[in-house]
């Protein structure tokens, strides 16, 4: 379920690094918790963020959720398709509904994130805590 090539944050974002280009999205757990996504607010190309900063928001019918970047990044591309079809984020959060791409060069930050197995354990613990 959770791609092995991604790394995961505690705020339910995923990062995929290819060379110096990082792609960021939210996880399936995140989209499921949010419910039907109706609006996605993304940063502008050229914007720079440190790891942990808010880069945008995802809104569902019932809630607003901030998107944090797990890595220091300079935005080079945003997913324009989400403006017209925000529901795509519910359907394919790990694939076509990626949020932003950018230049990321701090490999050390990636090491602090969870791998797929650790993330799966993390969310399993959360579900247990919530009594589900």
């Amino acid at each position: 379920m959770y791609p092995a090539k991604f790394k995961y944050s505690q705020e339910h974002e995923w990062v995929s690094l290819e060379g110096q280009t990082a792609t960021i999205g939210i996880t399936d757990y995140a989209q499921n918790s949010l419910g039907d996504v109706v609006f996605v607010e993304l940063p502008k190309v050229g914007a720079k963020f440190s790891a942990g900063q808010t880069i945008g928001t995802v809104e569902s019918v019932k809630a607003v959720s901030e998107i944090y970047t797990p890595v220091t990044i300079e935005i080079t591309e945003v997913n324009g398709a989400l403006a017209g079809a925000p529901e795509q984020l519910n359907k394919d959060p790990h694939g076509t509904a990626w949020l932003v791409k950018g230049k990321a060069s701090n490999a050390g930050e990636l090491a602090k994130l969870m791998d797929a197995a650790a993330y799966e354990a993390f969310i399993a613990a959360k579900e247990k805590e919530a009594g589900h």
Partner: protein
Amino acid sequence: MGAKMVNFGGWDMPVEYSGIMAEHLAVRTAAGLFDVSHMGEIEIQGPEAIALVQHVTSNDAWKLVDGQIQYSGLMTDAGTFVDDILVHRFAAWHYFLCVNAANQDGDYEHIAENNRFGVQVDNVGERYSQLAIQGPRAKEILARLTPVALDGIRYYHFSRGPVDGVECLIARTGYTGEDGFEIYFSPEHTERLWNRLLDAGSAQGLTPCGLGARNTLRLEAGMCLYGNEIDRTTTVWEANLGWICKMEKGLFLGHDALARQQAAGLERILVGFEMADRLIARDGYPVFSGGREVGRVTSGSPAPFLKKNIGMAYVPYDLRTPGTELHIGVRGQKAAARVVKLPFYKRAK
């Protein structure tokens, strides 16, 4: 059932089953089923029952006949809301109130405290479960499980009879803006009736619905939610609920305060508004007019059926005219909005 549960005032409630959008649209186009057993019920009985009901509520219960229901405000002596309720008349000496879950005990105490008429008041929340079936197909689905002629129950009236053999109070009321029924019955039958109704309605698209859709539906229909639009600080006039306030019925809790406010004029009033574009107003966001903060959003959300972003807010009285421009503070941005007439959505007759 795959429901996403949340703790709602001490009750374990489903927020959504298949998704708020799908559930909301099902109610507008087919039918939805809600377990609203958390709602409270209070019975008032005795020769002076009408006197007590009239004393503590804003609407005129004298107007009711047996089997009729009215929406009303349970009043403080400031003319503000202890709760919003449905008053059902069984008989001139017997009334049945449906009240909000979170306010059940407070409402009962308030009524008991004001019971200077020696009337019997009972908190009967534990004796009743409630299911609501709402939507254009609600009637045909419910008809499969009851010999009661549902066409004979007019809007805001009720009857009593068996649903799948279970004795029920069958009321033609709801919190969605659609036609539909709310049925009250003894709690041990809840699961069975829930399942039987879903079976009976599956071919017509009957969809289980949670609190998320319950909220978007009532907001789209311009209905108030206690705690958001109305509470002990909002008067009946300010909440734009003058139609449930019958000053001419005689004295009642809040009557004098409301008369004074009517004479003095209102400083603020509840309005509906629509966002100009894709930014969404949420509960508690600030409302601006001409750069000045003038209020807060009481309820705000996307409207799944209307495909707009809507909300309600208290604004200064002079900003109440439909078309008036407002701005809503959305994460630091000023998002354009305009006042619109309520309700946002009205079902076709």
